[in-house]
């Protein structure tokens, strides 16, 4: 088995392109992943037509000043904003593809915002977004970006509204002055002072008089209102402005950062491509060179032939993926104390992918067909394994789960993620070992068909 593996290694080493690919591939992928994860994402480029009058702040009834420019700033936060003076210019930039989208902030935003904040009614401010509809993917991305920014701006306004309403309530309870613009000011007595005055007036009435009983009911109502609203108004209003709070708990006790997931995915994709395609190519080579019949005529047991392919294809795939992790660790911190677990996941994954490649090679007559078959099978199945639950219908997801369980990508990814998280591989190791055994057995049975 070792002799055959060394022979294959020698043949592989004769192909400079293959050697170069095996060395450069992990380095290149690792660099790309590392740079992508260690740098902040590019800000989307959006044209902004800002027609908001800067010198006309919006004043609330409580006397607070809301600067519409701050709302505009919330809108363009985390965007690469290209400011243009007119809607036509913005539309041209979008159409030419110079920007992803354009946001039009209208000049009546102050009036509408004032009406909304001061609870006068009317139509809330409206922001127009221009997108290039010819590219649905880009349009969808732009929509999600702009929706997120508008949600931020809305939150800012609703927080202001909450403050305003809380201020009104405070004044209704404790008394104070309400302002409507610069001219109109109204002094409010307040519920607390009102109760005190009622109680004072009531004490001066003769006991048992009907007025005294009526005033007692009014005083009781005022006391109840004070007890209910005093101190809890702000928290109630805050709850109304942001009714949903998020507390995320991982049910399987794991909390894998996105970076680790990305690194693990890159490593397993590399492992898959190298081990699967090499496994397929190495067995197919014996058929292309017509050496298969000569070997199994008594020189080599078919099991040894399969074993030699698994050893080389699985081993090289694991080495390439491990090298990739080593290079990535220069950019993304990885816990090297659990490197043994990573290696175990990669070796088992490599063996499973290589065994599948060898089994596929039994179906093909030459190297080209075998590798094409392996490649054509690998990419869609890897993609399927990454489809999250609830992204598709329950029935379809069940089908995907079954397919993903029969393909080594998902268990290899799960195993490596566990390894990178410093955990034991657990069921993933058994799953991969079982897949390697099943595919190796399938290859063995397939070879029997070739010989007779």
């Amino acid at each position, binding site marked *: 088995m070792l002799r055959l593996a060394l*022979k294959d290694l*020698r*043949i592989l080493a004769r192909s400079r392109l293959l050697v170069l690919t095996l060395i450069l591939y992990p380095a290149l992928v690792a660099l790309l992943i590392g740079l992508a994860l260690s740098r902040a994402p590019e800000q989307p480029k959006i044209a902004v037509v800002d027609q908001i009058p800067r010198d006309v702040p919006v004043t609330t009834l409580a006397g607070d000043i809301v600067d519409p420019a701050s709302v505009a700033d919330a809108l363009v936060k985390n965007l690469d904003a290209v400011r243009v003076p007119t809607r036509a210019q913005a539309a041209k930039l979008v159409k030419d593809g110079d920007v992803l989208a354009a946001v039009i902030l209208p000049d009546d935003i102050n009036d509408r915002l004032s009406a909304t904040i001061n609870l006068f009614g009317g139509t809330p401010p409206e922001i127009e977004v221009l997108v290039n509809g010819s590219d649905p993917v880009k349009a969808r991305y732009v929509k999600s970006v702009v929706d997120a920014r508008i949600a931020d701006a809305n939150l800012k306004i609703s927080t202001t509204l909450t403050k305003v309403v809380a201020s009104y309530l405070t004044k209704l309870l404790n008394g104070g002055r309400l302002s409507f613009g610069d001219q109109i000011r109204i002094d409010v007595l307040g519920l607390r002072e009102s109760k005190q005055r009622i109680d004072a007036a009531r004490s001066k009435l003769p006991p048992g008089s009907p007025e005294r009983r009526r005033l007692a009911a009014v005083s009781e109502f005022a006391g109840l209102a004070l007890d209910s609203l005093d101190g809890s108004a702000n928290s109630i209003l805050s709850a109304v402005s942001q009714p949903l709070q998020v507390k995320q708990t991982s049910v399987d006790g794991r909390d894998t950062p996105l970076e680790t997931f990305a690194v693990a995915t890159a490593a397993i994709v590399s492992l898959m491509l190298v081990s699967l395609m090499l496994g397929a190519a190495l067995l197919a080579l014996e058929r292309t060179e*017509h*050496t298969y*019949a000569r070997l199994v*005529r008594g*020189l080599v047991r078919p099991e040894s032939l399969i074993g030699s392919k698994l050893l080389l294809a699985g081993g090289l795939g694991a080495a390439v993926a491990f090298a990739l992790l080593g290079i990535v660790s220069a950019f993304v911190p990885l816990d090297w104390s659990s490197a043994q677990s990573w290696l175990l996941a990669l070796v088992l994954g490599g063996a499973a992918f290589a065994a599948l490649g060898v089994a596929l090679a039994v179906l093909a007559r030459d190297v080209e067909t075998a590798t094409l078959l392996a490649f054509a099978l690998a990419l869609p199945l890897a993609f399927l394994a990454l489809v999250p639950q609830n992204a598709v219908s329950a029935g379809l997801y069940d089908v995907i789960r079954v397919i993903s369980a029969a393909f080594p990508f998902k268990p290899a990814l799960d195993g490596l993620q566990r390894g990178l998280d410093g955990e034991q591989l657990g069921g993933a190791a058994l799953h991969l070992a079982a897949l390697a055994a099943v595919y190796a057995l399938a290859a063995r049975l397939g070879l029997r068909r070739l010989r*007779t």
Partner: protein
Amino acid sequence: MPADVVTQAREDDEPQVILRATGVRKRFGSRVAVSDVGLELRRGEALAIIGPYGAGKTTLLEILAGAQRADSGTVERPRSGVGWVPQRLSIYTRLTVLENLRLFAQLEKVPAPEEAVRRMLILTGLEERKNDTVSKLSGGNRQRVNVAIGLLADPAVLLLDEPSAALDPRQRARFWAVIDRVLAARRAVIFTTHDVAEAARHSTRLLVLADGQELFAGPAADLVVQSGTAPGADLETSVVSFLHARGH
């Protein structure tokens, strides 16, 4: 009848048979590839198997080599084994001549692999090209490597499947010179060919197959007689006439 009974033919009772096949049959689906064929081979003999395309020549040779299982019949091989040179080159074209020979010598578990490799390089005249990758060799030299691998284990019988099909006349002459040396070393050779003249020139006996059936076994002169062709007719004409008379 067992599917593939392989026993050991005796080598020590010269000039007795060193390879014997009896009642060999093989089907591929509904097609009969070899039907009840038997043969015997002695040391120093060269048996040429001829016949039209699809006659079952390659299948019979593969069964004799152990590369293919017969559905029924027996094959008795010599203790020293059977060397097999398949129709298509069965060597690693990205390895050198030396690497190919060393690999197969090790896989054949030849007692002194380096000595066996050296001997084969001398026999096939490939010493000067031993460090060349096979892909850089001519068709003739590749076929010599193919033959050298078949002879590495020093087998008593060498089976050659259309060995000269892809060779030009000069390469063919060199190739047969190698085979003559093999025969001179008291080994036996079975080869298949479509070239009737070559079969007559390099064999001691002929085996004619058609549609998997054995139609003739014996010296070429007897075939000419049985074909009923005019005296002085060449062997090719006689073979064509012989097959035609039997519906092939």
